[in-house]
């Protein structure tokens, strides 16, 4: 990518003045946002509100946070949620390996000293995890809390606290507070309903699959040089696949993969045979493959 153009973009983007400017800056960063998403992001930025983005798999929820960080010239701090994630993995941990080495190195007298415990549980041995890191970085960071729906509800309640006042207390060290909050983006695939309280704190945006025109544009942005005619056919085919009752309908990433695969194979058209040969690039689940194969003629033909 052209570095100078990106840099210029970053400079102007760090104080975007309108939805249109933000949209353009995102576009320069390789992300095509529609009016709704851009407006939500803009309001979140200007009012310092976290943004909750929900949507189907692979519609660009994670990517938008990454692009935002890069165009705003901020550091991206990512907290990937998963089942069983707990506060240690999200906030901070003590570097106990180094603590033990340290104790061993101390002499008897030093060990008995009153302040040895304080030193041991001081900033030197504190390992920052994403939330603490983000609170420290404040305005310098974009905090991406990815796939929050995978964490359990207790973790969610804890997150709500952090998002409410952006301060974290480490008993041994004290309270760390962000002077200005980071931009927070939460994503969810909606495998479960989130707490109303958390949602009320956030701006909410539901991301639909992009309409065909936009999806073609996204592919051409992400995979420059591919044939536009072929891309149109692929986008049409992907949309037909999405209308089947698949367990995992293909996302935008799959559309891109499919076009790339066809390009590599030197295919210029998308008939039943080429669909059949390359279906694995778009559909990963076995049952879905079976279902799609039963509709081969319907998926390809449209070009």
């Amino acid at each position, binding site marked *: 990518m052209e570095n100078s153009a990106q840099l210029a973009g970053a400079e102007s983007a760090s104080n975007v003045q309108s*939805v249109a400017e933000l949209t353009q800056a995102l576009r320069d960063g390789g992300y095509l946002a529609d009016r709704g998403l851009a407006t939500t992001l803009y309001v979140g930025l200007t009012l310092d509100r976290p943004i909750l983005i929900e949507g189907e798999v692979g519609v660009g929820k994670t990517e938008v946070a990454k692009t935002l960080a890069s165009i705003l010239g901020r550091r991206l701090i990512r907290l990937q949620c998963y089942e069983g994630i707990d506060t240690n993995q999200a906030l901070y941990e003590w570097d106990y390996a180094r603590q033990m080495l340290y104790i061993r190195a101390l002499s008897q007298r030093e060990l008995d000293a009153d302040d040895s415990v304080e030193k041991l549980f001081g900033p030197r041995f504190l390992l920052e995890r994403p939330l603490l890191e983000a609170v420290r970085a404040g305005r310098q960071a974009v905090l991406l809390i990815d796939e929050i729906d995978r964490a359990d509800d*207790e973790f969610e309640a804890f997150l709500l606290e952090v998002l409410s006042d952006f301060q974290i207390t480490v008993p041994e060290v004290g309270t760390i507070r962000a002077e200005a909050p980071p931009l927070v983006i939460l994503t969810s695939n909606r*495998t479960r309903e989130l707490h109303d309280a958390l949602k009320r704190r956030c701006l909410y945006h539901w991301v639909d699959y992009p309409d065909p025109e936009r999806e073609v544009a996204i592919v051409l942005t992400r995979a420059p040089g591919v044939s536009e005619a072929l891309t149109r056919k692929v986008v049409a085919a992907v949309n037909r696949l999405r209308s089947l009752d698949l367990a995992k309908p293909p996302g935008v990433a799959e559309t891109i993969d499919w076009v790339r695969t066809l390009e590599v194979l030197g295919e210029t058209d998308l008939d039943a045979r080429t669909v059949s040969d390359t279906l694995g690039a778009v559909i990963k689940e076995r049952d879905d493959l079976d279902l799609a194969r039963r509709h081969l003629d319907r998926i390809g033909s449209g070009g």
Partner: protein
Amino acid sequence: MGEAPIVAVLVDFAGHLRRAGIAVGSGEVLTYCQAMATLDPTDLVDLYWAGRSIVVTRREQIPVYDRVFRAFFLNEADDRATPVRTLVRALATTASVLQIPAVDPGPANPEEHQARMGLMASTVDILRDKSFAACTPEELAALRRIMATMRLAPPRRRTRRLRPAARGRTPDPRRTVREMMRRHGELHALRWRARRHRPRRLVLILDVSGSMADYSRALLQFAHSATRATDRVEAFCFGTRLTRVTPALRRRNVDDAMARAAKAVVDWEGGTRIGDCLTAFVRDWGRRGLGRGAIVVICSDGLDRGDPDVLATAVERLSRLCHRIVWVNPHAQPAGRSGRGAGPGYRATTLGMMVVEPYVDLLVAGQDLRGLEELAVRLAELT
């Protein structure tokens, strides 16, 4: 255009949203006003998206929001106060730029719908060997004694809180290091933390209308013995309406609790409204914490008088709220193929069951004692 009119408009709009069932507090109205101050308040598209991002908290609310927005900002025939209306009309002149995105795909095609309805009519007469229902009072009493000795054991969940333990997966640096200092730098043994185990809450939602009464009574007996064992059991009964019977179960005997519940929730002509009752559960109890992470056991034959869409939406939302849904259906028919994740081969025989099946984690027949034993065993196995 001054500031006051737009504030008045947004307050008014919020009122309309509230009446349509979307909770909009004064905090949201304030945020909306602040957002519009940084956007263009005469641009309907900005008004639409800013409002949507602030007011809507779930995808399902989007069509409602769209409807209210259209009626409020694009329909001139209304009775709002004049100054407001003038502004609204001014805004409406920019209506041509507003393209409210397409809402969710419409309902399934009419033929399919009819086919399903037809199926329902023909399956009202499904097999009726009501094993519990056929029991004499003495036999029922005997069954109850047996049941009282069975335990409903909901699976345990791991909580985030860690407690000190002799061994575990997570090292406990604080304890290890403190111990080490006490021993003057000698590492004796690493200390560990383990996750606490806590039984998941068990929520029983029992259909007590008509033919379901006997089966539900048997399950309620279950609930009764479980309620005395742990306080993490909740019981609800439904027919036309839903009622919570947990407190009654603690105080009274099962028959009494059930008779009262039945009187409260069953309109004999009203039929069973599973969808509405489950919606009420999610709205009034589930969200407030009762359903979160819980194992929800629903006992019903799926014969629903209400709108199948309402039922589908309710179960879908319930499935996202709770940990697992177990459906006990005494009329479940064993089938060759098994339903989607729903267990060892039962076939949906009512429209209601067809609608809910994709969201059900386990489907068991509960028509006799063996069915309930199976339930007890499989509940404990659920993870």
